């Protein structure tokens, strides 16, 4: 097995990807390089910093150990890890075996939000949430945030759909002492062809699908051809959800949307009720891709339970279910109740005094 790193064309130190400039930065000589410059340098001065046989595999528990090529420490990692860093010297390690052949992603959206930006965004999460427990706004906890390239399957579909809707138009008017209600019933047959572009499905079992759903959408215009270099400085996973399993999820979403769109078409002609009575939706898979998407992840422990937060590493959209501090909730409720009670009583007194 092998570990890859990129070395600085100037001083041969390890390079890290900089989300702000979308370039690579050497932390020692402060030089910054584009992907082309790194490629050119690597062609000129020999291969990437690639070391063979550093990994010693331990199939037990599905864990692996690798020896850091910078400080020699033994690092334990999950078998799905594609990129990580040494916990002692922070040196990046990209595990090539988890990114080749079938595990080779075709594209990647590089991180756009730096860790500082992600932390600053997270600090604001407590705004307007007085019932949030204190640990969630503690900067010490927030700094545990890690940037992970999460494996995603993306699917393109075209759909051919037919559906029948029972609809009605209702008109009411008053005449004399009577109110009349006229109901016109219709049957609407509608067919349509639709194209869906890059429906994403989280390809990692470790991350909950609904959290990944909640940080959508990603702007696919910024998809780049995959290069190992983007992973330097971040963590990465390889997929462990097969594309066939992921596809059923995406297919269902396309199916639901196809019917929704037809319903909306019918609805827009001013019907009072629109009820679907039959449907025939054919979803055809056009293409699928395996890509990596940038996500800032944070786990915070509160009362023996772990709460996961995720931020779209591209758009900055932050989601997570925040628990409620029950003591705070009760206290706030009592305060609001007595506050409004006192204010209303005062208003009442003033009204009485003014009128009498």
């Amino acid at each position, binding site marked *: 097995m092998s570990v890859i790193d990129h070395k600085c064309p100037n001083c041969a130190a390890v390079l890290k990807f900089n989300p702000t400039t979308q370039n690579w930065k050497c932390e020692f000589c402060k030089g910054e390089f584009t992907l082309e410059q790194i490629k050119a340098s690597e062609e000129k001065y020999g291969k990437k910093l690639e070391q063979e046989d550093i990994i010693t595999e331990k199939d037990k528990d599905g864990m692996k150990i690798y020896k850091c090529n910078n400080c020699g420490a033994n690092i334990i990692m999950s078998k799905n890890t594609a990129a990580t860093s040494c916990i002692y010297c922070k040196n990046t390690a990209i595990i090539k075996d988890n990114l080749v052949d079938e595990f080779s992603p075709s594209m990647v959206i590089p991180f756009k939000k730096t860790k500082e930006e992600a932390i600053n965004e997270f600090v604001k999460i407590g705004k307007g949430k007085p019932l949030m427990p204190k640990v969630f706004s503690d900067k010490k906890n927030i700094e545990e945030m890690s940037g992970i390239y999460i494996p995603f399957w993306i699917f393109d579909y075209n759909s051919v759909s037919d559906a029948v809707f029972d609809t009605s138009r209702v008109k009411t008017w008053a005449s004399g002492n009577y109110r009349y209600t006229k109901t016109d019933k*219709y049957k609407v047959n509608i067919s349509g062809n*639709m194209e*869906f572009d890059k429906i994403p499905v989280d390809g990692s079992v470790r991350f909950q699908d609904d959290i990944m759903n909640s940080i959508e959408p990603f702007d696919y215009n910024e998809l780049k051809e995959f290069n190992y270099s983007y992973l330097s400085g971040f963590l990465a996973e390889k997929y462990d959800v097969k594309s066939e399993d992921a596809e059923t999820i995406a297919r269902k979403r396309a199916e*639901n949307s196809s019917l929704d769109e037809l319903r909306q078409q019918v609805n827009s002609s001013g019907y009072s009720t629109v009820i679907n009575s039959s449907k025939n939706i054919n979803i055809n898979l056009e293409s699928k891709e395996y890509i990596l998407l940038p996500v800032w992840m944070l786990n915070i422990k509160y009362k023996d339970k772990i709460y996961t937060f995720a931020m779209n590493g591209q758009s900055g959209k932050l989601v997570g279910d925040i628990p409620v501090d029950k003591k705070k909730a009760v206290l*706030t409720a009592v305060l609001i109740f007595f506050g409004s*009670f006192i204010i*209303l009583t005062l208003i009442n007194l003033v009204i009485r005094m003014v009128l009498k």
Partner: protein
Amino acid sequence: MRKIFYIIIINILLLSAFALKVDASTNTYTRTESNLRVPNDVSTNNKANIYRTPSVDEDEKIYDFAKIISDYDEKLLFEKIEEFIDEYDMDMVVVTINKSEFGTAMSYADDFYDYNYFGKNKTRDGLLLLIDMYKREVAISTSGHAILVYDDNRIDRMLDYLETDLGYGTYYDAVDTFIENATKYAKKGIAPSNKNAYIDENGDIVYVSPFPWFMIIVISIIITVVTISILLSRHKQIKKSSTAKYYLKSINITNREDKFITTFTTSTIISSSSSGSHGSSTHRSSSGRSHGGGSRRF
């Protein structure tokens, strides 16, 4: 013969004198520029209305210009009215007319009350019944405290009785039932619909916003529940996506057919709301004072 003639003359004189005495109940006084004969607290801006309203002796209470109630009946009714006035500290006036008068029966009733010295206390509490034989209309005008006692509902019910009796031409019964009803309601006191109202020093009805303790508690609970649920809703941010609308690149409707199937029409009676808690509706008379009450044709 001469003696008989004298006796007849004397009798006629006596009778006429007696008749004059009885007829005194409908006697009116002349209003002049220097003496308009209106109460001090009434505005004199509407001179025309003042001049056209008869000035009467306010103690007689029954002014039967239309002559539809016999003198004997008048006496009976007068006693009952006096009893009412003493008991409930409100004035009561009965007026009948059979001449064409300006304005509506209602406005005539208001003016008759305002431009004579009727009403108890500062707010001139009391009520007036007008039977207009010319327009065949009956009106009740309330003033001061009586506005609170006789709300729209009660006035309506009193007019119902009046309408029936007057329709039959039993005028004594009409007035008698009116006094009876007025007494019944006066005994009950202020109408429930006017619980939160009072009469200010100008005689106007003022509604106090109903804001009792339990209302304050209920509103406070609602505010608390709404605020807490808004706060709690901000804590749930993770939602599963079951559709893919964002990823829809193109849509092309290839066929659409809207087939008409059937139509049907239903009708329901519009129920007129009769909650009966409107309180008392008031209007202003030509003098600018507030009156309650109502009128009806018979």
